[in-house]
């Protein structure tokens, strides 16, 4: 029974983190930009969504969309710091992440004025009636409610995946891919590559904020520390996805990234079963990530050797 609920939990969080990973896929894989501002934009999305729902009384969907724009802005700041002021990519991310820690804290204070608070870092309210506990959800028998939540999450993830896939097929999307792969060519096409970087980072963080907003909805709780470790989690998901699942025929990179997020968060949840005290959890996370990377190194060298033996399609 514990194993069953852990699995369901793992899938729910995995789908939520899949959106996060899809955002990071844009910055890390497409733009080749290791963006650390993710640790800040994830809780930013959560706190914005919570404020819009509780303070402004907006329904969940518009609140999540507004959170997207919040992430968009924060990502653009990272991009502008890097492109216009020539701050290195890692530092630009760190600056924005650090600044957002205060922004989210101030926003939390706005929430906690007259709500039930646990600490100043988190906020929990039964009034946070969102996607997963509204009237529709209440009409579904308790036993099936977990599957209902999974269903909604799946729809959102597929929607985000389709949007990103379509976007990457447009002229603008092509330019983004070209910027990450060969900046000089973008210049020779008469375009300012820096602008595409800013745009890509904004979009990536927009999706990260959406993930944060959905995370807050999922747990009817906003937690200011929820951003910690999200960069690692997202990168792990993207790398596992691209290296393991993108070899499957008809699997696009985006599908592979979703699978990566699911696998990684399932593994994380099972680790909780092993280490019930939670002391070694982060250590186990790191070891798991390392094992996956080592495994990936082995398989990719095997794959390329197999290709060579077949007569080598690629020169």
């Amino acid at each position, binding site marked *: 029974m514990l194993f069953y609920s852990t699995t369901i939990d793992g899938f729910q969080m995995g789908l939520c983190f899949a959106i996060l990973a899809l955002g990071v896929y844009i910055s890390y894989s497409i733009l080749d930009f290791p963006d650390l501002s993710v640790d800040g934009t994830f809780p930013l999305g959560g706190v914005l969504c919570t404020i819009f729902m509780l303070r402004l009384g907006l329904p969940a969907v518009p609140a999540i969309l507004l959170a997207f724009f919040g992430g968009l802005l924060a990502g653009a700041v990272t991009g502008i710091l890097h492109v216009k002021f020539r701050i290195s990519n890692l530092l630009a991310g760190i600056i924005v992440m650090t600044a957002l820690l205060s922004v989210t804290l101030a926003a939390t204070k706005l929430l906690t004025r007259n709500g039930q608070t646990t600490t100043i870092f988190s906020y929990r309210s039964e009034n946070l009636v969102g996607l997963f506990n509204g009237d529709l959800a209440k009409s579904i028998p308790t036993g099936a409610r977990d599957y209902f939540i999974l269903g909604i999450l799946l729809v959102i993830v597929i929607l985000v995946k389709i949007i990103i896939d379509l976007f990457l097929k447009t002229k603008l999307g092509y330019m983004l891919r*070209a910027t990450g792969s060969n900046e000089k060519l973008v*210049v020779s096409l008469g375009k300012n590559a820096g602008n595409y970087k800013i745009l890509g980072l904004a979009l990536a963080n927009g999706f990260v904020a959406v993930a944060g907003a959905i995370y807050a909805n999922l747990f009817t709780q906003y937690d200011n520390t929820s951003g910690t470790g999200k960069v690692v989690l997202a990168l792990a998901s993207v790398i596992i996805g691209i290296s393991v699942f993108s070899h499957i025929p008809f699997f696009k990179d985006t599908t592979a990234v979703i699978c990566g997020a699911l696998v990684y968060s399932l593994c994380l949840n099972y680790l909780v079963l092993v280490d019930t005290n939670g002391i070694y959890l982060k250590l186990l996370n790191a070891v798991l990530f390392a094992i996956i990377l080592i495994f990936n190194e082995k398989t990719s060298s095997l794959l390329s050797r197999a290709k060579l033996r077949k007569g080598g399609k690629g020169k």
Partner: protein
Amino acid sequence: MIELQKVHKVFNAATVNEVELFRDFDLHIPRGQFVSVVGSNGSGKTTLLNLISGTISADAGKILLDGADITALPEYKRARRIGRVFQDPSVGTVPDMTITENLSLAENKGKPYFLRLAVSGSAKNRYRELVASLGLGLESRMDVPVGLLSGGQRQALSLIMSTLTPVDLLLLDEHTAALDPKTADLIMELTNRIIREKSITALMVTHNLRYAVEYGDRLLMMHEGKTVLDQADEAKKAISIQNLLSIFNEISIECGN
């Protein structure tokens, strides 16, 4: 067409390594002329291309394109009218994207890159015919990432990509130097064909004296930031590889090499 007026360029200014490469450098290339540039390493050939393309900026002087002053224009804005092929075949294409995708990027040059689907069905056929005309057998590999192609194939693709939309000036920066002799010949022949067919003004830097002699309407030899030889049309046709080599040797002896 393209004109350099009294251009100055100093590298590592105010240090012990200061090198004054160009002083009062003048050059005028009329429309439609195909110019080859030869010269030893450090003679300023590539710097000349970089100054025109805007990769580096001149310390003083003017650069005019069609009479308009482009000296202060950033590289990406100049690129709207200037095409360029580099020595390194990987620079002219996007390695992670397919041949079709690369061509669609190049074809849209000069227009905005908006949220519209990049490759339509009719475009695919057009690109296939275009690639088939190269005679490299690439038309069956349209959906292969360009990074998997050989250097020569990528350079051929770079060449058609840089001239797919009308350009006023084509800069060729030792674009056959990284290829094997046979492929280099093929690319050179293709270059000549494209330049003549589209009557593009072109400036080609090369270390291959044979190409410099056989192709182009005008030949420049550069040495320490100055043109030591500048022959066009009939006078250029009279130059043989032997002549060029002897001038080359004279220069080298002068600087004690």
